[in-house]
């Protein structure tokens, strides 16, 4: 299946409602609500035609004051069968939690830890929710827009 | 100012009296020039010197220094005679019109022409212009106020405005152009001997109680001394210490010999400034302060607009904010006073000052607000006295003309007026460091009429000695056709020739402003 077919397939067969979606320059992108995430991701992985089985990347974007809710958690999942990628975006506000997808793809474990470390977005159900790059007792979230480039010494 | 700078555009006639606007308020002067040229607004200029603004003026009144009241009374006489005054405004909004009217009757144009040196036809022309205009504005500056009769000058201008109902409407009003960037703010903040912030009277017990509660200390109800009185009190020994912040009285005060003695007699003098000025030479302690570019805070300009001042760079060496220094001294004298930043001070002061109550840093982030602004949703007041006069009824005060205290005689033949120059500011500590200002006016000068100079055998640029009954200075002559015969002009920006050595310290009884604009002097070759 190519991009357009995948997108139509998802629109018709998706168990949860698609808030926003389309076929961008690089791949299909879809936005779902925070609560429907696990349900939707399960659908992507287990459905034979889609078969999004390889987790490419889990990251987040801090829109700070440009958008509320403030963060967008972005998942990129690749389908070895169709050689196509999908971008799933979920809006998360400061202090909110989001479900971890390590149950579906173990590869997301470290990726989610990095998002927690850099943005302060905790993932519920994660086997080992700790910081990964910064020291354990670090108090700040460096990739947030309001964190100065030169860092904060205290 | 009763009105604001922007609504001057709606004036049909503008009376500029005692203000060299294009030199001392250049940006506003440009606007007047533009109005005259492109909108046809008719400007009447009344000034002893033929200042640049006269190029675009509709009518120029070459008045003798110190005779303003006569001129204004003369104009009012013509307005009343020709019925150009606004009867229903006078009836509804004013009081004391009848006695005032009797006094003005005496000032016929011919009688006034003798006193002021302005032709009676010009006086009539000016009166008709001002009287017949729907909207006429009065602009004045230190030329009106720096006289022993300064207060009366202003009151007679008020009479003129009330006479024609030119108050409380755009393009009208009585508008003093305050000389300095925050002189309006300094007055608003209670930098005066008789008033707390917001012109609340020190003598009023209830008001004093309010400030005692706010500051948690007993306050004195005795009205303090003004700047010239402080000099005298220091001489007589009543005052033993001066705390001077950002001032250079050794150049700006009148009768400087008198002041020099006073400063030497002081037991203790502290000066807090950004440069080592001449006043610092007499000081016992000099404290380095931050300049305007290194401070956060607010200035209030001449149209009562409170505007934000932001810190652009760090102060040099160990210079600190003025308020920090004062708080530290206060703490060491047992009164705990400390603030995190200037906004905290502003929050405290706006609660005590009714006119500033509604102004906050957030509200004036981009554009300033003009006080009075009682509440936080109040948009500010561009024009005062709208609808009705603030004090209820506009008061006509009959004022008789009296000649200036010091008249020229056979020994001191010239009248000296002092003032400012376009390129320099106040005591020159700032502008004399700047290349462009120094390029044009590097040294002190005495403006003189070419014929007077020829009679004295002087030509342009000669060194000359100017003496008055109080002192003498040496400077260079600058011939200029702007000057009338028998009158000379100089500025107080230069420490090497302090013109205020010549000026007297007779004060206006109410405003306590010295007579800078009229001093009898003689001019001799050194």
């Amino acid at each position: 299946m190519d991009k357009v077919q995948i997108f139509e397939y998802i629109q018709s067969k998706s168990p949860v409602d698609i808030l926003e979606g389309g076929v961008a320059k690089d791949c299909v992108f879809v936005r779902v609500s925070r609560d429907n995430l696990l349900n939707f991701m399960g659908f992507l992985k287990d459905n034979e035609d889609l078969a999004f089985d390889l987790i490419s990347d889990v990251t987040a974007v801090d829109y700070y004051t440009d958008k509320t809710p403030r963060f967008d958690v972005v998942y990129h999942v690749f389908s070895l069968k169709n050689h196509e990628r999908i971008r799933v975006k979920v809006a998360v506000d400061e202090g909110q939690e989001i479900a971890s997808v390590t149950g579906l793809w173990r590869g997301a474990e470290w990726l989610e830890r990095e998002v927690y470390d850099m943005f302060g977005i905790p993932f519920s159900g994660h086997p080992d929710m700790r910081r990964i790059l910064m020291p354990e007792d670090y108090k700040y979230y460096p990739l947030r827009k309001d964190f100065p480039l030169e860092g904060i010494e205290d | 100012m009763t009105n604001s700078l922007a609504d001057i555009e709606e004036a049909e006639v503008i009376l500029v009296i005692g203000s060299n606007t294009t030199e001392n308020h250049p940006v506003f002067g440009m606007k007047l020039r533009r109005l005259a040229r492109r909108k046809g607004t008719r400007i009447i200029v009344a000034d002893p010197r033929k200042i640049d603004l006269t190029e675009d003026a509709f009518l120029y009144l070459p008045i003798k220094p110190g005779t303003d009241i006569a001129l204004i009374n003369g104009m009012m006489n013509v307005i009343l005679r020709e019925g150009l005054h606004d009867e229903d405004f006078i009836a509804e909004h004013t009081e004391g019109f009848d006695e005032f009217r009797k006094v003005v009757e005496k000032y016929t144009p011919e009688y006034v022409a003798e006193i002021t040196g302005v032709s009676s036809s010009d006086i009539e022309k000016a009166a008709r212009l001002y009287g017949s205009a729907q909207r006429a504005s009065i602009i004045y500056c230190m030329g009106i106020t720096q006289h022993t009769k300064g207060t009366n000058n202003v009151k007679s201008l008020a009479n003129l405005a009330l006479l024609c109902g030119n108050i409380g409407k755009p393009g009208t009003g009585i508008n003093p152009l305050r000389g300095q960037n925050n002189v309006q703010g300094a007055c608003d903040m209670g930098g005066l001997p008789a008033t707390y912030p917001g012109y609340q009277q020190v003598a009023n017990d209830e008001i004093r109680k309010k400030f005692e509660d706010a500051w948690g200390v007993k306050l004195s109800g005795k009205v303090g001394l003004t700047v010239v009185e402080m000099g005298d009190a220091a001489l007589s020994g009543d005052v033993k210490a001066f705390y001077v912040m950002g001032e250079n009285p050794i150049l700006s005060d009148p009768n400087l010999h008198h002041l020099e003695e006073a400063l030497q007699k002081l037991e203790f003098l502290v000066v807090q400034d950004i440069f080592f000025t001449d006043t610092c030479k007499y000081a016992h302690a000099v404290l380095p302060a931050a300049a305007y570019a290194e401070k956060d805070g607010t200035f209030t300009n001449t149209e009562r607009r409170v505007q934000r001042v932001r810190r652009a760079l760090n102060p040099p060496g160990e210079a600190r904010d003025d308020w920090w220094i004062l708080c530290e001294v206060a703490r060491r004298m047992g009164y705990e006073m400390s603030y995190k930043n200037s906004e905290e001070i502003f929050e405290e002061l706006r609660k005590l000052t009714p006119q500033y109550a509604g102004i906050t840093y957030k509200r004036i982030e981009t554009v300033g607000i003009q006080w009075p602004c009682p509440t936080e949703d109040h948009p500010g007041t561009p024009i005062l006295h709208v609808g009705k006069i603030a004090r209820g009824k506009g008061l006509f005060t009959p004022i008789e003309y009296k000649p200036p205290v010091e008249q020229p005689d056979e020994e001191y033949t010239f009248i000296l007026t002092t003032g400012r120059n376009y390129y320099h500011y106040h005591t020159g500590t700032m502008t004399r460091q700047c290349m462009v200002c120094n390029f044009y006016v590097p040294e002190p000068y005495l403006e003189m009429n070419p014929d007077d100079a020829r009679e004295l055998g002087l030509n342009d640029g000669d060194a000359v000695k100017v003496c008055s009954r109080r002192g003498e200075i040496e400077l260079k002559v600058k011939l200029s056709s702007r000057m009338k015969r028998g009158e000379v002009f100089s500025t107080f920006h230069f420490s090497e020739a302090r013109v205020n050595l010549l000026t007297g310290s007779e004060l206006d009884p109410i405003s306590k402003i010295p007579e800078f604009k009229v001093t009898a002097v003689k001019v001799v070759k050194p």
Partner: protein
Amino acid sequence: MLVKINGQEYEVDQGTTILQIAREKGIYIPTLCYLERVSPIGSCGLCVVEVEGQDELVQACNTYVEDGMVINTDTPSVKAARKAALEKILEKHPLDCPVCDKAGECKLQDLVYELGYEERISHKVVGIPLLKEPPVSYSTPGIKYYPSRCVLCQRCVTICSEYVGREVLVVNEEGDKPRIEPLYADRCISCGECLAVCPVGALTENVSPLKVRPWQKKVSRTVCPYCGVGCVLELNVGDNRVVKVTVDESIPPNYGTLCVKGRFGFEFINSEKRLKRPLIRKNDEFQEVSWDEALDFVAEKLTAIKESAGPDAIAGLASAKCTNEDNYVFQKFMRAVIGTNNVDHCARL
């Protein structure tokens, strides 16, 4: 009055130009010589638009709208005309960007980047080599004038005659390259309006020895420290030095205008003569001391005099040059700490 621009209908009242209504409705029309505060100049030809029924392209800045006019602002012929106008200017422009103070803030650079976004403006080599010409004398020492960089937009001439009213500048047609001439230099009042409106590096600032590029400086808006008009201006600060003064045209009370003191009077801020450390007079000459020592000395002396001769033996001079906050704290100091009302300042002088 009804007007159609790019297929959209707009209600317009009499006497507005095409450019004004376009800007109001957010329709982009590039301009170089247009200056809001003065009457349209129409010398650069960049703002041309197509009006149906007229075969010639029309300058949007000085063409008044008529009822039923149909205007297109981005047809191919309009774009080509804009590029041609820009090309004519570029042909005579020296390759001074690396040494020009205005580079990075230059309107010509912005226009070349905007109009040449997709593809080149001119298909042949344009511009004249780096001339390294020294600046020629101008009507005020505060401004350096490089005639070779002038694009003849005449903004300076118009603002000096119409807005400031000094009519110092004229356009000198002779010679190979017409240029601006400060003919009546003695009338110049160094207000720097010409410097402020010059879109290119022909007129550049000549006061600060330090020059910085736009991305190396911090701009903070403050109020001029001189006369009572209270002009709002922006201090451009690079490496803790004030480098130049710019103005935002939309802010009252001065709406983008300044005088010589406001524009060029900033050197005192970084002057070497600034007071840097507290001084105390010891046996008749001043010694630098620490803050603590100075403050203790002042506090002691004032307390001593206050106790011996009473609070009214102390007088204070506040300052019309300090901020409201400073003055408030000063009079509070004199009244609450010293206990006297002997507070005044130079409002009377």
